[in-house]
């Protein structure tokens, strides 16, 4: 598994000092990067170089570096999370790049996700959508035994497919309309497949949908780009289920 060394790569990255500042691209060259390094390790090496040169390092979001926390959020060479499939930026490795290549790194470009600094964005809008109904209203304690609610394996698996969403925002960043439908659908669909979610199904679909619209995300035009960009391969079939839930709720009004 000896990894090749990339003798030289050029990183063209979005620099913006604060939300109000005017941003621009800067290009930096780094040398001798092992293809066994992850993309973010390459960014660490770039930042180390910038700091030692007396420059401001690039601010980017990251945390678990194993593809599950959803914090990393880079738009690389025109793709959310870069050119590999079914991975987050932190799981992307340098073996997907060639020697001498220029790699363009941008923030998520979504109106509802303003830039904080460089390629770090504010995804509070996703929090607000979840707070508008992404829960089952049960308090701690006083709940029935776990096995009193049998759930078919198929339903449990489909709920899990949806629940695998990591809330990274790649769907909205990829969508030409900046729509958050796949993100919203993942939560609504998880609960739609489970008996626990039925009691509040109508209010949930309507209030989460309304919150998404209010926050300025675009409408869904079914191009399916979000599914391809999703690091967890969440299917747009969940959007169909969301629409059905929403329609059912509206018809009952």
């Amino acid at each position, binding site marked *: 598994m000896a990894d090749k060394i990339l003798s030289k790569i050029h990183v063209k990255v979005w620099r913006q000092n604060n939300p109000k500042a005017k941003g621009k691209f800067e290009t930096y060259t780094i040398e001798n990067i092992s293809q066994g390094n992850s993309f973010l*390790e390459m960014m660490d090496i770039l930042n180390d170089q910038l*700091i030692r040169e007396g420059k401001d390092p690039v601010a980017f979001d990251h945390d678990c*570096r194993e593809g599950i*926390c959803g914090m990393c959020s880079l738009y690389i060479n025109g793709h959310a999370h870069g050119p590999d499939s079914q991975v987050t930026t932190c*799981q992307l490795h340098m073996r997907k790049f060639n020697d001498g290549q220029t790699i363009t790194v941008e923030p998520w470009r979504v109106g509802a996700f303003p830039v904080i600094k460089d390629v*770090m964005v504010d995804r509070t809008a996703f929090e607000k959508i979840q707070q508008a109904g992404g829960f089952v209203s049960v308090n*701690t304690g006083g709940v029935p035994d776990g096995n009193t609610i049998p759930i*078919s394996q198929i339903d449990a698996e489909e709920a899990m497919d949806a629940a695998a969403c990591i*809330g990274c925002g790649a769907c909205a960043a990829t969508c030409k309309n900046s729509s958050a439908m796949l993100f919203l659908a993942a939560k609504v669909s998880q609960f739609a497949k489970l008996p626990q979610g039925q009691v509040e199904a109508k209010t949930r679909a309507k209030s989460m949908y309304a919150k998404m619209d209010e926050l300025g995300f675009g409408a869904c035009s079914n191009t399916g780009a979000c599914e391809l960009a999703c690091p967890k391969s969440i299917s747009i079939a969940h959007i169909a289920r969301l629409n059905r839930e929403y329609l059912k709720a509206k018809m009952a009004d």
Partner: protein
Amino acid sequence: MSILNSNIPEGAIAEKWSNHKAAIKVVSPANKRKLEVIVIGTGLAGASAAASLAELGYNVKSFCYQDSPRRAHSIAAQGGINAAKNYQNDNDSVYRLFYDTIKGGDYRSREANVHRLAEVSPNIIDQCVAQGVPFAREYGGLLSNRSFGGVLVSRTFYARGQTGQQLLLGAYSALNRQIAAGGVKMYTRHEMIDLVKVDGKARGIIARDMVTGELKRFGAHAVVIASGGYSNVFFLSTNAMGSNASASWVCYKKGAFFANPWYVQIHPTCIPVHGSQQSKLTLMSESLRNDGRVWAPKKLEDAEKLRAGIIGPNDIADEDRDFYLERRYPSYGNLVPRDVASRASKERCDAGFGVNSEGKAVYLDFKYAIERLGQDTIEKRYGNLFQMYEKITDVDPYKEPMQIYPAIHYTMGGTWVDYNLMTSVPGLYAIGEANFSDHGANRLGASALMQGLADGYFVLPYTIGDYLSGEIMVPKIDTKSDEFEVAENGVKARLDQLFNIKGKTPADYFHKKLGQIMWDEVGMARNAEGLNKAIKEIQALRAEFYSDLLVPGELMNVNPELEKAGRVADFIELGELLARDALNRKESCGGHFREESSTEEGEAKRDDENFAYVAAWEFKGVDQEPTLHKEELHFETIHLTQRSYK
């Protein structure tokens, strides 16, 4: 030195928690509305505590350094959560979970806390199911279980290889409901920088807004630390990049004792280190040991050829493979506890049987399980883990065994707490991985999630009431008081100090160097000579840090390098305490292996006569030796014996 009182209730082990709940005080709903609680961290412990306290009517302020509470590192837990449900009819019980946890922890945890943990464990599963957590199900629709290391029953509940994610999203949904209802005020991208005490009691914090750089004061009637463990003191670990010890560390410096710092878990199945620029290690879940078989080559010449890349693992015949866990531990086989499995891998690699170019890896092989069960079944059980492995290593684990090696994963030690989870500072609590109480010297797999949620959902909401019932006459905390003023000025001075070193070297350099010292001298096996050497090296590193650190950027803006510098400064101090604790504990127990104390078979040899105590350290100044306080461990129910998994 003093002897600590852990406030364990009277009565038989199975009655202590019930007796205690009956005896402690309760706050009326009208008074709860007037009381404020700060919770630091939003992992399983923090999110479940914040949501549950708000449901009870307290005013909660919740803090996390990430952009969303959902990103806390509990999210990365893979394998599962234990509970004594006995759904499998395999003779599991509260007592058996209690016993397994005490034994797994090598008889260095507090009996009363562990029994309570086992008692509330079934409630956790019920709670999560009610929230809509999509646990794995059998065809009949009931909950499914699997087995984990160190036990002989199947009591682990799971959601594919993403159990931590699903449990955290459950707690996060409960938290979101309370944020929407106004019971919780959520502060994301805020880092706690100091604890504020008024008249000896915890009354608030100073936090830095990580977007604007502004320092802010927050008051409360009680403060709860749920900020996780300190594995990143080793730099390379399975923790998230941002996971840090600073919240616990400022509490230590303000009088909260720090217990058993050396009890650190080294997980046996992680993807081996590559090169020198690696930023973190990735765990491959312990659940894989249900179906994977661990082996190294029998012949040294095969190991040499593997290291040189002349042959691959599939070129080695079955009879030339040494399934060393099955050989050494026939009754538990591949499912021995983590400390035992880690040491066994190290033993094989040190003896020259390592299989990667650095000689620091063994195999975890699924060939046999695939032959027995088919690839589809294996894919269903572990598909996401196999995909993760392939993305990182570029090797397909369905075709070739995984390479694995031990890595730092979890810290059993942490802030000392009594039975109520209160630290040695009145009004300051520590829950989840941040405290020390339940796992002794080694944590069993799938028990971290259990403990985090037990503390947050079912223990703290009761015990904090006992303290807060005495605070009902205390008005809203005034953050303009002298105590807050002094604390904020101290924080300002400290940030200025880091900024003004203006040396040549970024914080990461010091962090990596610290990690190397820790791994080499304070790692999987250690001795007095190495530990003394480590203490000197860490002290020298601290001096170098304060003369050569370079923090770029601005104080009043997003500044990840400033955040790192503060955390690394704390890790350097913590690393020294860790080495001191390991030096003090001359016995071996669980994850703590002193070369001077081992059995003839190379297993950890305890010394119950001299070391059956919790070592709780009191801060006396950065350049002063800390004071050791002891909490004697009394085993009233379980007989102390040499642990055996043979």
